[in-house]
């Protein structure tokens, strides 16, 4: 076909690895400082997922060592005691972009199957060094060692070395080691802050980092309670879209639409399936494979509008829970009051999510800014450090949008809010995973959770205020008794000394009796008020 024009475009296809290699900034690898931080982060999060998703109390050890000082190359090594990786998957898991274990409906820290590969890709581009992986899968008798590089054009792994070793101990886990060009001096405080906050959100883990200066920072496990590991679940119908329904139809084994809906989705039973199909005007017994595009569109529309589903199943999610959050806040911030809320599950676009909020007040909590409380954001247990201002959580808790005065809090005050959002899919604003997008469903849940926690705070504060108030009133009277008695006593003496003056003690005594009458109405006040008086000199 066509065409003799002098300036015809040339078209070609691009592998995912090549795409991300060319656009590494969008995943946070924009400069040596940021890249080093991002590398640590991606590897640590993979390690934590390999542990707590499988009921293992995590022990993670990070080292950042200089590899080639002249060229600013650093070796980042992260070891965990996780479940390990089946050796047949290792090459692809580390050498093929968009390959991984996280593409399903279950809460994990990493989401894009991209992070670790970006670190490897970046290391390979900047230092030419392969990634080194040593893994000891749980239950296996062997340890496996790999050196892998990525064929960027083909998006395929190149295994440069592979070894198998018989293992003596039962210790399992994975160690990943990459060499990247980095800028430690500028990344240092970022990385240490990240590790500290991570430890705050995962108080059941032990995390150690050893820096190029050979300093070790260790955060030891403070509780042994763990959130239940998440499980994979079927999608929730409220978040269905046309594309998803088409995929389900293509793979279903059900012979009627009704059955298909029941089998493919959570929260749909016989009855609701019938209602949905009636709404869409489709025969419930129709063969799913015979649906027209218009029928699919109608069915999606009715599934999204129906509002009597059971809430999404929480099995896929792993919230921290009230106890862990409150323990974390108390341990780190030492407040006079702490309260946490775990909301019921909800969903957006078919992804279930749970919002958890903790509020810490008073005590040693640092003073907040004027514009809002101190905010600690977590997404699937990951601390979010940057771009706070554009995060939906900040939008909710900032003073401009949340009426803190209504809860007896006048900013700035000693108040901190922790928000944890867990979901099978966190809607990040960018691949850098630093802020969460304004999804209305999430915004509403965060607001309700903050309100609920703030109500408990208000209750605490107003009780405290009332008790103080009553005592203050009594004191107000008692303290003035001596002067009033003295003055009235002096005024009672007529100028031309006839008449009948009243002495100080008598007046004082009458005044005290009047006050005691009043004080008796207050319960819990059992003290001789006279002891409070210090007579006038």
């Amino acid at each position: 076909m066509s065409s003799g024009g002098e300036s015809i475009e040339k078209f070609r296809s691009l592998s995912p690895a090549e795409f991300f290699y060319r656009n590494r900034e969008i995943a946070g690898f924009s400069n040596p400082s940021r890249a080093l931080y991002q590398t640590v982060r991606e590897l640590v999060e993979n390690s934590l997922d390999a542990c707590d998703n499988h009921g293992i109390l995590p022990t993670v050890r990070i080292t950042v060592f200089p590899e080639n000082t002249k060229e600013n190359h650093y070796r980042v090594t992260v070891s965990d005691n996780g479940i390990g990786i089946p050796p047949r998957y290792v090459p692809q898991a580390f050498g093929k972009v968009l390959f991984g274990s996280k593409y399903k409906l279950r809460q994990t820290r990493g989401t894009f199957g991209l992070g670790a590969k970006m670190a490897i890709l970046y290391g390979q581009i900047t230092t030419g060094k392969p990634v080194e992986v040593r893994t000891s899968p749980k239950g296996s008798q062997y340890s496996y060692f790999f050196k892998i590089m990525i064929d960027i054009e083909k998006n395929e792994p190149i295994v440069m070395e592979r070894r198998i070793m018989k293992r003596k101990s039962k210790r399992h886990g994975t160690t990943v080691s990459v060499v990247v060009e980095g800028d430690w001096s500028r990344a240092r405080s970022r990385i240490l802050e990240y590790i500290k906050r991570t430890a705050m959100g995962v108080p059941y883990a032990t995390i150690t980092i050893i820096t190029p200066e050979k300093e070790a920072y260790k955060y030891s496990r403070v509780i042994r309670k763990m959130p239940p590991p998440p499980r994979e679940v079927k999608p929730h119908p409220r978040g269905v879209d046309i594309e998803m329904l088409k995929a389900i139809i293509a793979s279903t084994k059900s012979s009627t639409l009704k059955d298909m809906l029941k089998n493919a989705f959570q929260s749909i039973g016989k009855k609701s399936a019938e209602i949905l199909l009636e709404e869409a005007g489709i025969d419930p017994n129709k063969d799913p494979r015979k649906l027209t595009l218009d029928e699919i569109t109608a069915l999606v529309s009715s599934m999204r509008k129906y509002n009597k589903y059971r809430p999404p199943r929480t099995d896929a999610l792993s919230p921290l829970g009230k106890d862990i959050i409150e323990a974390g806040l108390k341990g780190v911030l030492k407040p006079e009051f702490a309260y946490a809320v775990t909301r019921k599950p909800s969903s957006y676009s078919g992804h279930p999510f749970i919002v958890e909020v903790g509020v810490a007040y008073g005590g040693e909590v640092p003073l907040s800014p004027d514009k809002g409380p101190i905010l600690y954001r977590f997404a699937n247990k990951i601390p979010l450090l940057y771009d706070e201002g554009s995060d939906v959580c900040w939008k909710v808790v900032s003073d401009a949008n949340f009426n803190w005065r209504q809860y007896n809090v006048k900013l700035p005050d000693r108040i901190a809010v922790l928000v944890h959002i867990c979901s099978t899919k966190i809607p990040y604003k960018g691949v850098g995973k630093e802020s969460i997008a304004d999804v209305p469903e999430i915004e509403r849940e965060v607001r309700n959770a903050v309100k609920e926690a703030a109500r408990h705070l208000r209750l605490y504060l107003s009780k405290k205020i009332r008790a103080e108030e009553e005592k203050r009133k009594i004191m107000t009277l008692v303290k003035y008794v001596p002067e009033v008695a003295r003055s009235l006593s002096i005024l009672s003496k007529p100028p031309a000394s006839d008449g009948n003056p009243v002495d100080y003690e008598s007046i004082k005594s009458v005044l005290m009796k009047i006050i005691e009458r009043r004080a008796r109405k207050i319960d819990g006040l059992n003290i001789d008020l006279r002891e409070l008086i210090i007579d006038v000199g």
Partner: protein
Amino acid sequence: MTYPGIDEIDYKQRLEAAKKLHEAFNKTIEELMRGKSPKLIIPKRTLSNTIYDPERKLLLLGPAKLKRSFTDVNEAKRFMQTVLMARILYESLLNNEYPTIRDLYYRGKYSITYMDLRDRRKKSENTWEEQKESDAAIRDIEVFTGLLREDMLVLSKEKGKLVGRIKLRSGGDVIDASKMGHGAYALESTPDLIDILEVDAEYVLVVEKDAVFQQLHRIKFWDKHKAILITSAGQPDRATRRFVRRLNEEFGLPVYILTDADPYGWYIYSVFKVGSITLSYESERLATPQARFIGVMMTDILTKEEMRNVLARMKNLRKRNLEDILNILRNKPYIDSKERRNVIIKAKEADIKRAEQLKGYTWFKSFRWRLELEAFLRYKIKVEIEALASKGLRFLAEKYIPEKIETGDCID
């Protein structure tokens, strides 16, 4: 009471005041000793209880009372402050002291020490922090007992000066205010203790500004025009007001007030005439309802064209008012528009607010006052007395003041 400085008149006054103080509080004490919670029933000094009496042309306290009960936690401190102040005043009277309000503040100020119920710690609180508080206590006692502070021999800073054909007796001396040279007689704090012996004058001219007073005195204005010249040197103090009132009341002298043409000057006039809004209980003895405003007026400097603009803003004008206008404007403006440019001052936001307030007061609702205020609000300008001096001192002394008195171009 053996100090040589004590004079008879002061001593008599002391005894009388002390008796009244004692009696006023003794009732409360007696009730208390019968086991009743102690309280003071005091006329309310609030704005809402300040009433303009159009008959007597005075601001007076209305009938509302407040009950200051010791057992009301919101009132306890003020109750304590009130009896504390009463005691100090009582003691001063009995000890032949002449305290100032600042003295009273110091004498009453000390730290009350007590044990706090909440944390069982020793704490302390001052009887009062600022003089504002002790001053309020003095005022409470004034309205509660009907005694003014002067009656209790409390002295205060006095700025009022006097010259003219008048003879007084004070503290045993006879003073001739027409023999003060270029200086003047400075009034005392207790003008009710002055004997006015002889008055040979036709009116009283009160000048807001001390320097203008001196200028008029220097050219012996009072001698030529048979006037008593008084300056309040700004906001008038109580003694000056009381003395002016006495001259008017006891000798029937007309009183003319000369101030700047601005809300501040008008308010000075208003204080002389009807009393201070916040201290209306004093008015009965301090205000001079017959006093008249002689200038400077907005109408002194506005052109006929401008006056038409002002009239256009005013509603409910009667025909008589319009005739008045023509009459008023006969000799005006005193300052032509070119001179004026340099003597007018732009009104500030605060001035305008103040003028809006004045507009609301009954005694500023006469036609002539409405004219002044509307003119001010229309053109937003102020004029000082000194502005007339740009035409020379003789203009003020020989034309402006005499002409106004003669033609009656004064505002009541």
